[in-house]
């Protein structure tokens, strides 16, 4: 296992190095560098879209997941989850398009579309994570005299946190990958360089959008992975 990851790390380093040589020798780097100003401006738009829609999805999705897992929701929760599940089968491009028909063009429909697309994994993981907390832990907590709120905060949520984090990680990966589509409904972002590059058959412009998008996705996933490693309590964290 250790050896495998070491091997693959070596391999990816070699590949990045080879890519670097190829990009420089073919003159692509200078072609990309032409768009430096655009990249920075659009990257900022892109990050704002990801952060705003992803953050909103976390702030809304986690409480919804908690609410669905409460005993009072026991009967209706599964049905509501089914509605959410049907929701995920809609392709994100369709979600964005539908969002445009409702909200017009610009930041708002892009934000809303991305928010909806990333909401589901968060709700689902929060819900299933909380339901998976062993029954005997809840019995011990109640028997010791915890109030429902104390039980949620001190026992249920910490024990579900690893699963919740996995949901957030998936949601943000979807979010970052979908954000270039925001350009199609006037939401801005790096999609502008990518789609225009495709239309003009301009490889430099295309890469000027695609490479930062890819790097951002890797970076976000890395940050989330680190957060999962360090924020989930040691006793319930399979990574530690």
């Amino acid at each position, binding site marked *: 296992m250790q050896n495998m990851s070491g091997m693959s790390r070596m391999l990816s380093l070699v590949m990045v190095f080879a890519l670097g040589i190829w990009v420089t020798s073919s003159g692509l780097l200078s072609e990309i560098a032409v768009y430096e100003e655009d990249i920075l401006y659009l990257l900022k738009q892109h990050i704002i879209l990801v952060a705003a829609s992803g953050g909103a999805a976390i702030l809304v999705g986690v409480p919804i997941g908690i609410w669905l897992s409460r005993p009072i929701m026991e009967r209706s929760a599964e049905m509501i989850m089914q509605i959410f599940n049907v929701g995920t089968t809609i392709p994100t491009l369709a979600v964005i398009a539908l969002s445009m028909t409702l909200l017009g063009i610009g930041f708002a429909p892009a934000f809303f579309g991305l928010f909806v697309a990333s909401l589901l994994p968060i709700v689902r993981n929060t819900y299933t994570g909380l339901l998976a907390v062993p029954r*005997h832990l809840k019995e011990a907590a*109640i*028997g010791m*005299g915890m109030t429902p709120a104390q039980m949620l905060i001190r026992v249920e949520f910490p024990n579900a*946190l690893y699963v919740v984090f996995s949901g957030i990680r998936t949601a943000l990966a979807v979010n970052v990958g979908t954000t270039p589509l925001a350009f199609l409904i006037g939401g801005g972002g790096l999609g502008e360089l990518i789609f225009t590059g495709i239309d003009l058959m301009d490889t430099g412009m295309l890469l000027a959008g695609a490479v930062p998008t890819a790097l951002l996705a890797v970076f976000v996933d890395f940050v989330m992975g680190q957060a999962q490693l360090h924020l989930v*309590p040691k006793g319930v964290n399979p990574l530690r």
Partner: protein
Amino acid sequence: MIQLENLTKTFETPRGVVVAADKVNMTVPTGEICVLLGPSGCGKTTALKMINRLIRPTSGRILINGEDTADRNTIELRRQIGYVIQQIGLFPNMTVEENICVVPRMLGWEAKPAKARAAELIDLVGLDPHHFLYRYPKELSGGQQQRIGVIRALAADPPVMLMDEPFGAIDPINREIIQNEFLKMQATLKKTIMFVSHDIDEAVKMGDKIAIFRGGRIEQYDTPDRILSHPVNAFVADFVGADRTLKRLRLVTAEMIADPGTPAVARGARPQEALQAAKAHGGRTVIVIDANHRPVAYATVEELSGAHGTVGDFAHPLPATVPARADLRAVVSEMFANDVMWLACTDDQGRFAGVVTQPAVTAMLGQSSGQPLTN
């Protein structure tokens, strides 16, 4: 003191009404362990869980130290009752110390005394505080986890404890050790304890009283000895087992039926002295002791009569001795192993403390009342 008065619980199920507890009446005196015993589905756990209101009684009352629990705030009530479950239920996200401090902190203790209490308790069950306080439950063995489960329930020093098959998931060797540890703790703590078990041996060992349940009713509520010697009906007799008389052996220690008057003489004593002592006592054997008062050999009246020299010349070495504090099961086992009718027992210092005979054992088992077993 815990009192259950006409405690009843019925559940509505699709297949009709199920009665889990049917007018249960019992009193557990302060400082005693009462074991609720019965086959699964007999209502013992339901009865237990009604005490801390995890299950709401349909009717009837529960009084703790004379106070009706229905009048009290449920959350506060639970914080004053120690609760141990079979699955232990240590919170995996918290360290051992945090687990122990849960109830004290909810009761408003400062962090410092709560932590001091955790260290004190962990020491009490023979675990090293430096080693264990900052570990997570998953890093502990099953036996260690169960010890922590018990002391977590004791953390806020509750007068009453409820234990739902607390040692059920532990291997037999560790279970025995933890049971002994717990009984030792209970001897000083004197908690009032309701203890659910399905194991008659555990019940006999742990209980001051045993309540045998069937179909939500108490079939018999009595001391372990009375339950074993006088089962009230065929169900109880069947449940405690065909070897119930042998099980009573565990309830009695050797010193309770040993005859301390059996003559003991030094190796160098004259046979005449030994004979006189034996005659005064009425027995046919004298025990030979060494300078430290340890039993080492025996001689019979027949061999000694008319003999010359010292007792030591006629003595045979003792095949075995037993500690006076051993239970009769161990004593009888030792007798059978050595094919003898009697054994000398020794006190904690190894000194001669009397003789246990097979007739004395059978007389004890035959005694109709299991009460004071002085010989």
